[in-house]
């Protein structure tokens, strides 16, 4: 093998590692998009803000001296509870008003949190406190940091827990029943309002965890930080098939890897353009997403 080819493979390995790290973050956020869509058919454009809220909860409590292993659950709980409150106060009263009013409301909530954050915290980026010392491991020409390892492991663990919750617990089965049809679920005695609240909680908690992870990874947080990753996670959810949980993971990882390959082998400023190009292409070619079945609409 010539030296050039060898370096190509080292580079490729590096971009894949970086892509999977970035993709893990997208996947965690995309899961909430897809779960909320699955249960009430709402594209929750405010979902990226729960990621920002999680990042800031992490920022403040780590500054206050709370250890990292506690900062995670607290940030998840905080983001989750705020999402539950928003669902109860804002989305529930308009649930039967139709999809477009709900979508516009979600955009409003998104702007509300972005500007509330700027008002309360200020628009300038804050340096995320170093919760742990960063270490770099080197394999040949590939570098991987302990923070990347934490992101990959934490994402994997959260996904396994989510998979178990959705497939093997009573409440998870009730979520799947509710996402099929609210009336049918109610006829089983399932309190669908509670299940919807719970779904918002889980989705936002995952986004909150992603927020803390990204704070550690990129070391800055700011009130607008949820906007672009929120849109990327939406693209990831659509790419995998919106409403389909494994699809969000697949879409997130695919998007993260694709972006990093663009950055590495092409031009780094094309990264966002490529993400949106992927959205347009998937909508043209297979609007149901990679894992989506082209089902007949329920009557």
């Amino acid at each position, binding site marked *: 093998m010539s030296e050039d080819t060898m370096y190509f493979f080292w580079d490729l390995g590096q971009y894949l590692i970086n892509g999977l790290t970035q993709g893990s973050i997208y996947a965690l956020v995309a899961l909430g998009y897809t779960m909320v869509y699955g249960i009430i058919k709402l594209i929750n454009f405010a979902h990226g803000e729960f990621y920002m809220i999680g990042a800031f909860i992490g920022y403040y409590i780590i500054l206050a001296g709370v250890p990292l292993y506690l900062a995670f659950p607290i940030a998840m709980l905080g983001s989750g509870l705020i999402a539950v409150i928003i669902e109860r106060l804002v989305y529930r009263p308009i649930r039967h008003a139709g999809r477009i009013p709900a979508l516009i409301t979600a955009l409003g909530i998104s702007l509300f949190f972005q500007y509330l954050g700027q008002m309360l915290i200020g628009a300038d980026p804050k340096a995320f406190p170093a919760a742990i010392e960063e270490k770099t491991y080197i394999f040949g020409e590939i570098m991987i940091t302990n923070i990347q390892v934490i992101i990959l492991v934490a994402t994997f663990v959260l996904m396994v827990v989510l998979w178990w919750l959705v497939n093997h617990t009573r409440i998870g089965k009730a979520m799947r029943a509710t996402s099929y*049809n609210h009336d049918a679920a*109610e*006829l089983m*005695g399932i309190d669908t309002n509670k299940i919807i609240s719970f779904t918002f909680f889980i989705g936002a908690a995952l986004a909150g965890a992603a927020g803390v992870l990204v704070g550690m990874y990129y070391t800055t947080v700011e009130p607008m930080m949820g906007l672009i990753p929120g849109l990327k996670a939406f693209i990831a959810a659509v790419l995998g098939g919106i409403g389909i949980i494994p699809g969000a993971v697949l879409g997130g990882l695919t998007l993260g890897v694709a972006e990093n390959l663009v950055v590495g082998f092409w031009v780094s400023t094309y990264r966002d353009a490529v993400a949106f190009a992927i959205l347009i292409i998937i909508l043209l070619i297979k609007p149901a997403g990679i894992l989506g079945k082209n089902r007949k609409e329920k009557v």
Partner: protein
Amino acid sequence: MTTETLLEIKDMHVHYGAIHAIHGINLKVNKGEIVTILGSNGAGKTTSLHTISGLLKPSKGEILFKGKRIDHLKANKIVSLGIAQSPEGRMVFPDLSVKENLEMGAYLRRDKAEIEKDYEYMYNLFPKLKERSAQLAGTLSGGEQQMLAIARAYMSKPELLLLDEPSLGIAPILVQAIFNAIVELNKKGMTILLVEQNAYASLKIAHRGYVLTTGEIFMEGPASELIENDEIKKAYLGH
């Protein structure tokens, strides 16, 4: 023997927006009976069942279950009081297995040992479901889905079972099996309110019947009399 009234509907009206779907119906179901509501498409049969189950709210009138008003309650609360429904179109959860569908039927129950017995009872009543217990419900045939919908409703251990058109779109041989199962459940003490277009089959197994036309009760009486009634023969029995 004293008859105990399980369900009583008094002057119930239901509106869908501006449409006045049910115009003040009165109906009673006594403990241990099979009562059937007959009527053609659009007569208001499903609307009536949805209102009893709490998926729709009456605009006027009362629904009493064991003497207590239930018409203001949410659907999931009504299930907890002891009314279960196998809905029109079956509405089994397609992405859940047969067993998981039955688990959802037992969602509110905590008596594990009794739940296990009821799974067995349902598997005996509908052996097809046992064979397919690990299969996704969406892969079942229409008749099997209907069996699952009835079994799932039974799993909440209700006192009153509402069945909405269990014969709709199902092969005749399976219709017979399903009606036999309904009789079997009733013999074991289950009270059943059966909504049907298939007037002959349902009058044969019912104790009493109501005929609904465009939101009003047009006729009521013992099933044995309704089955002999000339008007009903002409309108519903095809001779």
